[in-house]
């Protein structure tokens, strides 16, 4: 019964019924022969939420999206759109619209004709269709393209047409399958911002599938990280970045250092974990039952939490050799090699002068609170 985002207006009015979730997935499963593409995926999307499904290729995010659209039929599980059961409904009966990776524009129709297509299917009168097409073309700034065919349009223009075509039917949910992957790099930032503002303005829930973290974290209210047909973690971007729940998530998102080891000692509110490169103090949540002594666990430390100016409070220390230094403007990343051969990343504020050079061996440390223990299945 938990909503992932609060609508203050609704909550403020006492006794008012809670608004239905735009989308609810209950334990969706989809198999192709021997291969399980989606394995027990459950998700709740509140009204007007921007959700990003993030993960590597083959993790099941696109299949999940297609199940929501109705283009694939799940073997098990239920799909509720706007509170209504839609699991067995075909795509044309669902309150959704979809944007495809290569836009899938109809090559034989003019822009105006295809943007109006969805309304034609809804049997709206011709005058209304013409009016609404005009309106949406103007608001997307493509009115001048109304009589052109897709073949004569640029990538950016096609993307707008695809968007207009989908949005004109005012769906409850818009599904986007890697929508900006086909655009030039320079265009992507602009388009991302436009789409974010569009989503906020219209209040339609967006479900955006991508393998690009930058997209997911900058756009999503809710980020769902998937791997091997399962959801590894879902939550707001800060939660995923600062408190990764599994070793996979920690390794997948940028800027985390992952450690694997065994529980050596159980303390109040902390664990002492023994790893090949040393023994470290890691806080543990008191609410959860403690892991068994000797069991395998993993934890991660963000690269910017590490320091080379080691003081008393930096109880966790290890020695490593610097192999490379990368400068990104805002951040200077030092890449170290740990004694177990793994990579350790140490980020410093870019404005500070460079001190560390490749070849240097240093002792690096971090405070106990900086480490995040991973719950759940390790990567």
């Amino acid at each position: 019964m938990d909503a992932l985002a609060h609508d203050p207006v609704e909550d403020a009015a006492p006794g008012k019924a809670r608004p239905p979730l735009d989308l609810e997935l209950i334990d969706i499963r989809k198999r192709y022969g021997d291969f399980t593409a989606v394995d027990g995926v459950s998700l709740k999307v509140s009204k007007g939420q921007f959700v990003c499904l993030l993960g590597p290729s083959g993790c099941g995010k696109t299949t999940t999206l297609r199940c929501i659209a109705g283009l694939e039929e799940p073997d098990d599980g239920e799909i509720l759109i706007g509170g209504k059961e839609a699991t067995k409904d075909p795509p044309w009966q669902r309150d959704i619209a979809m944007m495809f990776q290569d836009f899938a524009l109809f090559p034989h129709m003019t822009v105006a004709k295809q943007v109006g297509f969805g309304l034609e299917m809804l049997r709206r009168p011709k005058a209304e269709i013409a009016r609404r097409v005009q309106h949406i073309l103007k608001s997307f700034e493509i009115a001048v393209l109304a009589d052109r065919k897709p073949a004569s349009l640029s990538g950016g223009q096609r993307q707008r047409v695809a968007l207009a075509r989908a949005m004109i039917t005012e769906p409850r949910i818009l599904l986007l399958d890697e929508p900006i992957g086909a655009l030039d790099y320079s265009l992507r930032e602009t388009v991302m911002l436009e789409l974010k503002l569009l989503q906020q303005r219209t209040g339609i829930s967006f479900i955006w599938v991508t393998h690009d973290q930058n997209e997911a974290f900058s756009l999503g209210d809710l980020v769902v990280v998937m791997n091997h047909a399962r959801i590894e973690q879902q939550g707001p971007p800060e939660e995923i970045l600062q408190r990764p729940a599994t070793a996979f998530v920690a390794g997948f998102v940028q800027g985390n250092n992952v450690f694997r080891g065994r529980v050596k000692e159980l303390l109040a509110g902390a664990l002492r974990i023994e790893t090949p490169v040393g023994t470290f103090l890691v806080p543990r949540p008191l609410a959860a039952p403690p892991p068994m002594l000797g069991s395998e666990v993993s934890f991660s430390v963000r690269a910017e939490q590490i320091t080379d100016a080691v003081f008393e409070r930096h109880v966790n220390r290890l020695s490593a050799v610097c192999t490379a230094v990368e400068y990104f403007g805002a951040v200077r990343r030092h890449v170290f090699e740990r004694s177990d051969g793994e990579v350790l990343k140490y980020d410093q504020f870019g404005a500070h002068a460079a001190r560390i050079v490749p070849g240097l061996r240093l002792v690096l440390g971090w405070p106990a609170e900086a480490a995040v223990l991973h719950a759940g299945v390790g990567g």
Partner: protein
Amino acid sequence: MSTIRIRSPASYWLAVPAAAWMLGVVVVPIVLLVWVSFWGGRAFSMASPLTFDNYARFFANQTYLKLALSTIVHTATLMAVTGVLGYCIAYFLVMKVKSPGWRLALFLAFIVPFWTSTLIRAIAWVPFLGVNGVINQTLMYVGATQSPIEAFLYSRAGITMAQVSLYTMLAAGPVVYMLNAIAPQLREAAMTLKATPFVVFRRIVFPLTLPGVVIGQVLVFLNVMSDFATVATIGGNKHALLSNLVLLFYEGSQIRAASVVAVLLMLCMLVGVVVALRVVDIRRLGADR
């Protein structure tokens, strides 16, 4: 850069043998036919005066005109039947058969007969259609009729049946090609835009395959109009179409009459192809109505 320089003399000269062959063996004879069709006088010589008499004689003859008309009707029937059948088969092969192994097998099963002689395949219909033929024997065995139906062999229906089996794949082939070219996302996009499957077909798939349909129809048209062998074999001497008329006149040494029919046949085919090319071109740039 490649093994041939763009616009070099070499590229021009490489084309000359083939061009000369086609010009000499196809273009000149056809032009000659047109010329001969205007020859007057009695002698068969290049010095003959030119006249419209031969054409006048043809058009004055009711039998010939009826023949021309029935040729056109017959061809139109074939085009319609092969068009619909061919589209169904093409759609099934491309859209409904999921496993590539089966698709290849079926495709081969349809294409292989094409590599054998059309003449033999036409002859093969004779034992089927006759009074004692397979069809009649099956019908009587099953009890559908008491006495054999004579209407199969030596009839327009029989010719049509045989030609359907010969030419449907010509109609299906180009459609298969165009159907293959349609990305599945287009149909999916239409479905997410509230279009039911039948509407998806009518508004998206069919318009995009129209060029293939037209090309297929042109191929059938050309083949049926010039097919005299099937008509002769199955129709016996009781039926003739325009193409048979050419042969008839030729065997009767009426060269001028034969060339008149030949020219008319060519004109029909030319008109058909031009009309088809117009339609296809329009469709390529054409609007979804």
